[in-house]
């Protein structure tokens, strides 16, 4: 479904991604783990077209997308929940969700999806008229995920959904991610620092270090790998 082929991405003269090759099959949850500054967020921004690659290709559904603008990529079915959630602070929860459906015109379907989001996260319904900036971190994360789903994505990119949240909320959010994957068949590309949780959620994983993929395998094998254990699982 998604294929990154020898992708090199730069910020000015600084190379953030080196020869990245990643493949995601339809219906999978895959995870990209690694330390701070390894290039995980850049990988997602490259896929979304916000920071296009200097060389290499990003193929989605058989079509190269690395030269397309971010709005075209969203239109093709790739939505991102960015690091730090980036809620629109002066829009209400409902308006934030509505922004997620910016490229859609079917108001009945949008309404339906909004109801579905409220079903998934009842707390959002209670606060639907409040401004996004007034929500707690966990609520913002729920809103960010719901907002991305409002575009009806085929591929959902999640950037560190566990960042700064309480363990109980993290577990709840990962359960929802699994549910989204299972029920609507949405493919999930999960970037995480919490390697343990990420590998337990995903089917397969990639390990990134200094802008390079150093390891890729099924989640079970990565969880059992001695190097991964030592470097990322704290065992």
């Amino acid at each position, binding site marked *: 479904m998604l294929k990154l082929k020898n992708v090199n991405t730069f910020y000015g003269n600084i190379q953030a991604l080196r020869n990245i090759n990643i493949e995601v099959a339809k219906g999978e949850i895959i995870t990209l783990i690694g330390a701070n500054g390894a290039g995980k967020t850049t990988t997602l921004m490259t896929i979304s077209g916000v920071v296009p690659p200097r060389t290499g290709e990003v193929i989605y559904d058989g079509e190269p997308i690395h030269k397309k*603008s971010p709005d075209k990529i969203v239109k093709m079915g790739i939505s991102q929940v960015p690091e730090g959630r980036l809620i629109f602070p002066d829009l209400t929860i409902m308006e934030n969700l509505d922004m997620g459906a*910016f490229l859609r015109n079917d108001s009945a379907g949008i309404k339906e999806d909004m109801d579905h989001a409220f079903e998934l996260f009842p707390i959002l319904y209670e606060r639907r008229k409040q401004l996004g900036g007034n929500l707690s971190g966990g609520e913002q994360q729920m809103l960010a995920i719901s907002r991305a789903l409002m575009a009806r994505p085929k591929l959902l990119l999640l950037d560190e959904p566990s960042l700064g949240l309480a363990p109980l909320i993290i577990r709840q959010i990962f359960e929802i991610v699994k549910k989204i994957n299972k029920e609507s068949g949405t493919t999930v590309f999960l970037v995480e620092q919490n390697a343990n949780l990420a590998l337990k959620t995903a089917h397969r994983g990639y390990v990134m270090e200094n802008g390079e993929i150093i390891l890729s395998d099924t989640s079970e094998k990565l969880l059992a790998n001695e190097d991964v254990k030592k470097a990322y699982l704290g065992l």
Partner: protein
Amino acid sequence: MDYFLELFFSGLTRGSIYALIALGYTMVYGIIELINFAHGEIYMIGAFVGLTVAGVLTSFGFPATSIMVLASMAAIVYAAAYGYTLEKIAYRPLRSAPRLSPLISAIGMSIFLQNYVMLAQTSDFISFPSLTPEFAFLDKYSSTIGSSDFLIIVVAAVVMVLLTLFIKFTRMGKAMRATAQNRKMAMLVGVNVDQVISVTFIVGSSLAAVGGVLIASHIGQINFFIGFIAGIKAFTAAVLGGIGSVPGAMLGGLILGWTESFCTGYVSSDYEDVFAFALLVIILIFRPSGLLGKAPIQKV
């Protein structure tokens, strides 16, 4: 009391024009955090286009009202094209450059456009025909409010209501608000940010052009330098109201207009700028982000 009302309305007239120009500053700042120093020149170019069109149409014997409408429309189209092009050639290539670079580019464009108009037209004042129709129902109040004051106030009010509705209810308005709040996230929900920025420049320039034609017809003369002075005043109004805030620009414009007008009326016209800028300093001491501006949010 009559004197007070006269000052009130002349302040409202000035303030409406300041507000129209200030909106362009504040909208652009809200979207790309740039003070577009060339915005005053767009206003000046609007006035010049209005003058040219008015001259041609007068020689064909058109009635004043239709000249006013057509001259304004031509000024809008021209100024919008200038604003669009300005952003495209002077600001867009510098979008990821350090913040000082586009600012210097803006000052450069301001000087360039001033000199361009000076060379292409003239450095002298040119008289601008009065295009305002006489409103008969204002005869009774002619000591407090003139026809062109009335026209400016009404047109500015209508334009500002339309702008507010545009920002609040249209798809493009939604995209603008989202882009102003978080540009990266706006991209990620599918907003074409380049297009939003272009539309912002087009809308801001159109408002300035309307202001340019209205005030030129009110005062009766223009030259290449009017944009600089009006630009500084409107910029002050935008900062006063809180730069980045649309209602703030409207409020700031009106407050500045009244300050100048009452100062001229009760103290001396020599001191109107002193009072205007003193007011700015005082407000910024107590509310550094302006009257309706928001304190920058600390992102965690």
